[in-house]
């Protein structure tokens, strides 16, 4: 159950984290 939990959360967490990072990189241009 714990492995399944980890896999599921990673499956949705990694793409989301990638999207947030890309957006933050873009957002920082506002303050340059």
């Amino acid at each position: 159950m714990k492995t399944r939990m980890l896999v599921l959360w990673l499956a949705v967490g990694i793409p989301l984290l990638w999207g947030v990072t890309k957006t933050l990189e873009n957002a920082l241009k506002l303050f340059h």
Partner: protein
Amino acid sequence: MTSSLFDRESTIAPPGYNRFLVPPAALAVHLSIGQAYAFSTFNLPLTKLIGISHAAPGDWKLTEVGWTFSIAIVLLGVSAAVFGRWVERVGPRLSMFTAALCFGGGFLVAAMGLHFHLLWLLYLGYGVLGGCGLGIGYISPVSTLIKWFPDRPGMATGMAIMGFGGGALIAAPLSLLLMDHFKTAASNGVLETFVTMGVIYFMFMMIGVLAVRVPAADWKPAGWVPSERPQQLVTKANVLVDVAWRTPQFWLLWGVLCMNVTAGIGVLGQASPMIQEIFSGAVSPAAAAGFVGLLSLFNMGGRFFWAATSDYIGRRNTYMVFFLFGILLYSLVPTLGHLGAKGLFVAAFAVVISMYGGGFATIPAYLRDMFGTMNVGAIHGRLLTAWSAAGVLGPQLVNYIRQFQIDHGVARAQAYSITMYVMCGLLLIGFLCNLAMRPVNDRYHHRASGQAGLRP
């Protein structure tokens, strides 16, 4: 075997099942369909399918392509309203699978539209079929999450609906990456990107389809005892969907959602030109794109933050904060613009957009409080027509007011002031709807015998 996989009974969780396995299943669907918010990344490339690097004669116009998103948002509301009861009946797995077929298939049909250069096929694929996927996918996990988290319904639905906001953050860079990858001398890469995204999103949504479980009828979180203290705006009764939409509470909530979304969506759609025109010369197009990205982050974060907060301060109070604080911030924006206070201007809009996202994410728990859990998914589906109405009303209102002022000689930098005050007016209407909220009359309640409450 196929039918047993999708039967509601086969999705009932065994004893000891960890309920925190369900939010990622819901997120897999919402992160996918949230791509809709990033559809604008395709707008310009879709106008250059023939010319590749420039718009050639025969290429579609931007206004024609723009209808694709509008059709999808209208179909989102319509399909959520029409299929809500079916989603409740068949359960989350079959409805999430249907959403995956519609959304993924919508991309593939739209890709055929690009291949044959048929605009109606693009509308049919992404707009109609994809729009149905959006609506069914949006409401599919909501009532399941509310049943798994009776102690924290706001947090649970906020987590899923946060995914819808987060979907755009993934889809925007992914679309650009794929179009760049597939670009050749003979293609600008949009067609290939549509096919790839259709397959990726279908597979990603299938993670949710296979992982989702519903709790057993008598299941309760370990150690959780429902509060015996009566709460004025939290019912223990249930109202059926066909009865709910006849109550004044349904239409008051419709007004609450519509006004909150109209105010936010109008500004969100105009964020880039707005900041460039208000701070003329001080904000480059790249910085303005950064502003839009920042708003997207707050849109996503606000969905979780405000919905989770509503579990502690109550749904009605949460919307009171949205409307009162929103009125204050919108009325301050013109002054901040005149003063050239860019940082405060950005901060004000970040908070406003967090409350826009929060409005979406808190509404399922508000519905559960007013109408009970029995038909909450279907009622939520019908309420989402408010979103469709706001999706048309908000951008039109902002565009029209801005253009009217510019046509009458108002400087571009000042053209948004009246718009902000109109937004305050909309939020005031929402505030009054929320203020008028009272518990649903007993006569509407569902009886244990299976009969709906007395007709009004």
